[in-house]
């Protein structure tokens, strides 16, 4: 058990590893909450979980090829998400079945690569469960780059994406390029998942995607305010999660998710009682 207390937080902020963790974590939380909110409204949250598991194959590939695993994970996730969208559009499989197929292919691909290569089990473990406190300069550059790209896409096409999410057919009739924007959005989902892997890990990434949006939805606000509340909840969960886990020396990704879940429960209770 750690001998630190919350009063040591200002001192922790002076450490570079902690700064990296906070910056990487907050960027991830912001984008996850924003993208996740759209995914909830599109009823596609499981796509987040499926793609995260598919990315496992990409991580293993990166470790095998000695390329940054986040980059190979991004390529594999993007291919997976585009394939899921294609299978759905062409009527080859419904959304849930298409996600299950890609999840299985990606994960089993990862297992085959591990068994062929051997020897990087410990490193893989950090991608499965996240290792935010070991984020280095290169990771931070990748996370920041992907995060800024994701935030720009969402910021620019915010109202078009909302229109498609609310009524795809009506959006098409209004002249909104539904297919290109949907493909763009799905690539954004893959990007978001990739930048979350180091922070929260493949297994728990879906929590960062779902919980902030779901919490915000309990508050019964306008779309704009619900989006802001979701992002706020995501950032707060991340900050509290990282800080508490550093102070009490417990698994960071677990604390982040528990904090987010606690905020959700609080909001749900507030809604029941108000």
């Amino acid at each position: 058990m750690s001998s630190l207390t919350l009063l040591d937080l200002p001192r922790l902020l002076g450490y570079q590893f902690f700064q990296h963790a906070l910056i990487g974590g907050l960027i991830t939380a912001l984008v996850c909450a924003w993208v996740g909110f759209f995914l909830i409204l599109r009823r596609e949250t499981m796509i987040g979980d499926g793609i995260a598991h598919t990315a496992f194959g990409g991580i293993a590939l990166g470790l095998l090829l000695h390329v940054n695993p986040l980059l190979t994970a991004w390529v594999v996730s993007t291919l997976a998400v585009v394939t899921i969208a294609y299978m759905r559009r062409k009527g080859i499989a419904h959304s849930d079945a298409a996600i299950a197929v890609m999840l299985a292919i990606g994960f089993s691909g990862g297992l085959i690569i591990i068994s062929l290569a051997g020897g990087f089990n410990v490193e893989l473990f950090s991608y499965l469960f996240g290792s935010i406190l070991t984020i280095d300069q290169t990771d931070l550059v990748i996370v920041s780059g992907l995060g800024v790209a994701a935030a720009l896409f969402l910021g620019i096409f915010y109202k078009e994406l909302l229109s498609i999410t609310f009524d795809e057919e009506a959006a098409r009739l209004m002249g909104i390029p539904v297919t290109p924007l949907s493909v763009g959005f799905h690539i954004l989902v893959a990007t978001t998942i990739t930048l979350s892997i180091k922070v929260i890990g493949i297994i728990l990434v879906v929590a960062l995607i779902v919980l902030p949006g779901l919490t915000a939805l309990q508050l019964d606000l306008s779309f704009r305010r619900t989006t802001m509340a979701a992002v706020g909840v995501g950032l707060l969960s991340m900050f509290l999660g990282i800080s508490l886990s550093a102070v009490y020396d417990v698994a960071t990704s677990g604390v982040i998710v528990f904090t987010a879940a606690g905020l959700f429960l609080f909001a749900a209770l507030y809604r029941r009682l108000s």
Partner: protein
Amino acid sequence: MTAAPAIEAQGLTITRSGATVINDASFVINRGDYVGMVGPNGGGKTTLLQALLGVIPAAGGSIRLFGRDKKTFSDWERIAYVAQDAINFDASFPLTVRELTGLGRITRDRLGRPLRQEDWHAVDEALGLMEMDDLADRRIGRLSGGQKQRVFVAKALVRDPEVLLLDEPVTGVDADTQKRFYKKLSDLNASHGLTIVIVSHDLAAVFCRMSKVMCVNRDVYIADITDDLEPNEILREVYGDHFHFVFHRHECTGVFADE
């Protein structure tokens, strides 16, 4: 020189899955017309509207919009459409009346650009026209059926269209609300010169309120609604010989609660 009609179809044939849904239809809808589209369910009304919007290709014949062949027509902002199932959305969707109406201002040439002050002015004006300004900040899931219709019409109007196509917008709404809705559309037609084509099963509203009736059941018949028009003559063409619609023009007076 007179302006070209808003919509003109010549020998229009539409097929779906190999079956003919609209057969060799020719009709003209002039600017400023208020057209009631009637006919039995499955008769092809929605298909016809979707063909006019370019969603479904025509198997034969031609459609001209504002004098231009539909194949080369690109000015789709001039035509707004409210779908049959528009009001059947997820009631928990976190969107206010004002936000939903604002989505109507998205146009092809301004994709990715934020809405400006003038866009929000147009939104407030459209909500005012539809008497929904008091409810601008209400979540759309909390509206009544009649209020939902009016918001979707406001969302269509905010595009400042010249033609408004409405596919059975009053389904599932009580009779008084329906009447108020038709009155509202009449006012828009009269005051703004808006061309309106509305699919409706309310024959009294069509023959009392509108300037043309369009009967659709694979074949399409269109007629000006005048004092001389005998409704049953045209209605039997689509509903069959057994159909009898009891209608006396003098009964239009007082039909609508607000008159």
